[in-house]
C-alpha cells in the first residue's frame, strides 16, 4: 500500500510529467459534468464552459511560444480566427455529406489545425528572423492582416460549387445554396456541433502534445535556444528550426482551439479576433507564469470566469478587472513582499 502511495507521490513530483495538468483538467471536467447532470449550473456558466476550455488551449499553446521558446507573439487571436473560419467552412460544406456531428467536428478541427499550421509556417519564415520587440510587432501586424483579409472574404456554396469574391460581394448564390463567410459580418447560421466533452478531449490532446514536446530532445533544444542562442548554435542546435517548430506547434493548437470555439456559436465575426483578444490570451500566460503549464490553465480559467463573476458589479467590472491586473503585477514583482513570503515559508519548513 505504502509502495503505491510513494509511486503516486513520485509521479507528481517528477518534473514536467504533466500529471498535475491532466489532473486539473479532468478534475474540472468531472466537477462541471456532475454539476450539470444534477442541474446545479446556471445557463450562463454552461455557455462559458466551451469558450473557457478553448482559451485554456490557446493559452497553453501561446505559452509554448512565449514561455518555452521565448518568442513574444501578439497575433495568436489571428490564428484562432483562421481555425474558427476554416472549421465553419469545412463543417458547412460537409453538412449534407457527413451527418454524424462528431465525425464532422473531428474533420473540421483537423482541417483547421492543418490550415493554421501551414499559414503559421509561412508566417514564421520571415517572422523568426526578427527578435524581441520587433518580433512582437510583426506578429501583431500579421494578426491585423489576417483580421482584415478574413473580413473581406465572401464565400458561398450552391449546386455549382464554391463561389468566392474578395472585398465586394459578387457571389451570386442560388436559393438552394448558402453563404459560408460574408465579409465583415463573418459567418452566420453555423450548426453548433462543439461540445464541452469535445473541448476537454482536445485540451487533453493539446497537453499530451505540449508535454511530449517539452520532454523530447527538440523541447530541450527549444529551451536551450531561448536561454542562450549563441551557446546553442555553438553546440550544433539549429536554432531557426527549433523556433519554427515551437511556433508552428503553438499556432496549430491555437487553430484547433479556434475551430472548437467557432463551432460553438451560431455566428462569429472576424472583428472578434482582434488585437485585444491576443492581449487577453497573453495576460493568461504571463499571470500563470511563463513556461508554467499548470499556472496557465489555472490563470486562464480564473481570469476567463472573473469578468463574468463580476457581472453583478455591472459597469464597474472591467474597471475592477484592470485594477486586479495591475495590482497582481505590482505585488508579484515586489521584492520586499517576495522576501517576506520566502522567509515565512522557510520558517514553516524549519518547524516541520
Amino acid at each position, binding site marked *: 500500500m505504502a509502495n503505491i502511495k510513494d509511486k503516486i507521490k513520485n509521479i507528481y513530483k517528477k518534473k514536467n510529467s504533466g500529471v498535475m495538468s491532466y489532473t486539473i483538467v479532468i478534475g474540472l471536467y468531472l466537477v462541471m459534468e456532475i454539476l450539470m447532470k444534477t442541474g446545479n449550473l446556471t445557463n450562463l456558466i454552461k455557455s462559458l464552459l466551451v469558450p473557457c476550455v478553448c482559451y485554456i488551449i490557446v493559452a497553453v499553446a501561446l505559452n509554448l511560444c*512565449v514561455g518555452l521558446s521565448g518568442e*513574444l507573439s501578439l497575433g495568436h487571436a489571428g490564428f484562432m480566427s483562421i481555425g474558427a473560419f476554416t472549421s465553419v467552412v469545412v463543417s458547412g460544406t460537409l453538412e449534407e455529406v457527413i451527418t454524424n456531428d462528431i465525425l464532422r467536428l473531428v474533420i473540421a478541427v483537423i482541417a483547421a489545425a492543418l490550415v493554421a499550421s501551414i499559414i503559421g509556417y509561412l508566417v514564421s519564415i*520571415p517572422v523568426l*528572423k*526578427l*527578435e524581441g*520587440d*520587433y518580433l*512582437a*510587432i*510583426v506578429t*501583431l*501586424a*500579421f494578426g*491585423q*492582416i489576417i483580421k*482584415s*483579409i478574413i*473580413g*473581406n472574404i465572401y464565400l458561398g456554396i450552391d449546386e455549382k460549387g464554391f463561389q468566392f469574391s474578395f*472585398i465586394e460581394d459578387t457571389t451570386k448564390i442560388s436559393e438552394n445554396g448558402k453563404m459560408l463567410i460574408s465579409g*465583415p459580418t463573418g459567418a452566420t447560421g453555423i450548426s453548433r456541433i462543439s461540445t464541452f466533452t469535445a473541448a476537454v478531449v482536445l485540451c487533453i490532446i493539446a497537453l499530451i502534445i505540449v508535454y511530449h514536446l517539452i520532454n523530447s530532445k527538440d523541447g530541450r533544444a527549444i529551451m536551450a535556444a531561448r536561454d542562450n542562442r*549563441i551557446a546553442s548554435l555553438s553546440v550544433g542546435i539549429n536554432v531557426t528550426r527549433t523556433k519554427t517548430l515551437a511556433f508552428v506547434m503553438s499556432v496549430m493548437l491555437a487553430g484547433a482551439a479556434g475551430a472548437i470555439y467557432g463551432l460553438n456559436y451560431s455566428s462569429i465575426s472576424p472583428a472578434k479576433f482582434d*488585437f*485585444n483578444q491576443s*492581449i487577453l490570451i*497573453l*495576460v493568461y500566460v*504571463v*499571470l500563470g507564469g*511563463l513556461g508554467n503549464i499548470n499556472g496557465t490553465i489555472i490563470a486562464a480559467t480564473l481570469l476567463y470566469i472573473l469578468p463574468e463573476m463580476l457581472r453583478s458589479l455591472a*459597469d*464597474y467590472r*472591467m*474597471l475592477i*478587472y*484592470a*485594477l486586479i*491586473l*495591475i495590482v497582481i*503585477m*505590482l505585488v*508579484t*514583482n*515586489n*521584492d520586499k513582499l517576495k522576501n517576506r513570503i520566502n522567509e515565512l515559508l522557510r520558517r514553516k519548513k524549519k518547524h516541520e
Partner: protein
Amino acid sequence: MYFITYLISGIGLGSVYALIALGYTMVYGIAKMLNFAHGDIIMIGAYVAFFALSRFNVPAYLAVLLSVVVCIALGITIEKLAYKPLRKAASLSVLITAIGVSYFLENGAQLLWTSSPKMFSSIIKSGALELFDGQLSISYITLLTIATCILIMIALTYFINNTKTGSAMRACSEDKGAASLMGINVNRTISITFAIGSGLAAVAAVLLASTYPSVYPTMGSMPGIKAFTAAVFGGVGSIPGALLGGLLLGVIETLAKGYISTQLSDAIVFAVLIIVLLLKPTGILGKKKSEKV
C-alpha cells in the same frame, strides 16, 4: 491632382501619427518599455479638450493648454504609480501592467462619459485652401497639423540636443547606471520623458479630433497601434525615425485608401511594415547593435 491631394492629407495624418509615435519612442528609448496606455492618454486629452470647448466655451488655445496640462499630470501619475515600482521587473510584467492601465483608462472613460461618440467641434474654422482654380484643396486643419508637427519637431530636437535635461535624457537612454553616477536624477528624467510624451499626445489628440470629429472611449487604441507601428517603422528609440515612420505610414495609408481599397488599407500598412522590417530589421533609422559573446 488627386495624387497631390491624397499625398497632402496623408502627410497630415502622418504628422499626427508622428506626434504620437514620439511619445512611444522616447519612453521606449529611456524606460525600455512599450507604453500601451499611450493611446488612451490621447483619448483622455480629446475628452478634456471636448469638455473645455463645448461645456465651458473656453477659447481654443486655452482648451489645448488645459488638455496638455491634464495629460502631463496623468502621464506622470501613471508612471509613478504603475511603472516605477516595476523598473527592475521583467519586460513582460511591465507590458501587462501597461495593458492593465490601458483597460483602466478606457473603461473609466466609458463609465464617466458613456460609450456613445461625442461630436468634436474643430478648433479652427472649417474650410479649405483652394489652389489652381479649386483643383487642389487643402483643409485648414491639415495645414495646422503639418505646421504644428514641424514646429514641435524643431523644438524637441533643440531640446534634446542643446539643453541640460535633454542631454540627461540621452545619457539615461544609453546607460542608466553610468548616468546616475554622473549625478543625473534618473527617476526625474524618466518622469520628464513621460510628461513630454503625454503632452505631445494631448496635442495629437486635439488635432486628431479636429480632423475626425468624434470622441469616444476607444478612439485612442487604433491610432495608438498605428503610431507604435510608425515608431518601429522608423527605428524605435530614434526621434527622426518616429517622424519619418509616422509620415510614411500616414501617406501609405491614405494612398492605399484612395487607390486600392478602404477596407484593406490597414492590411496594406502592416504588410509594408513587415517588408521594411525584413529588409532592415531595426527599422529605417534604427541603429544596429552588434552582439557581444
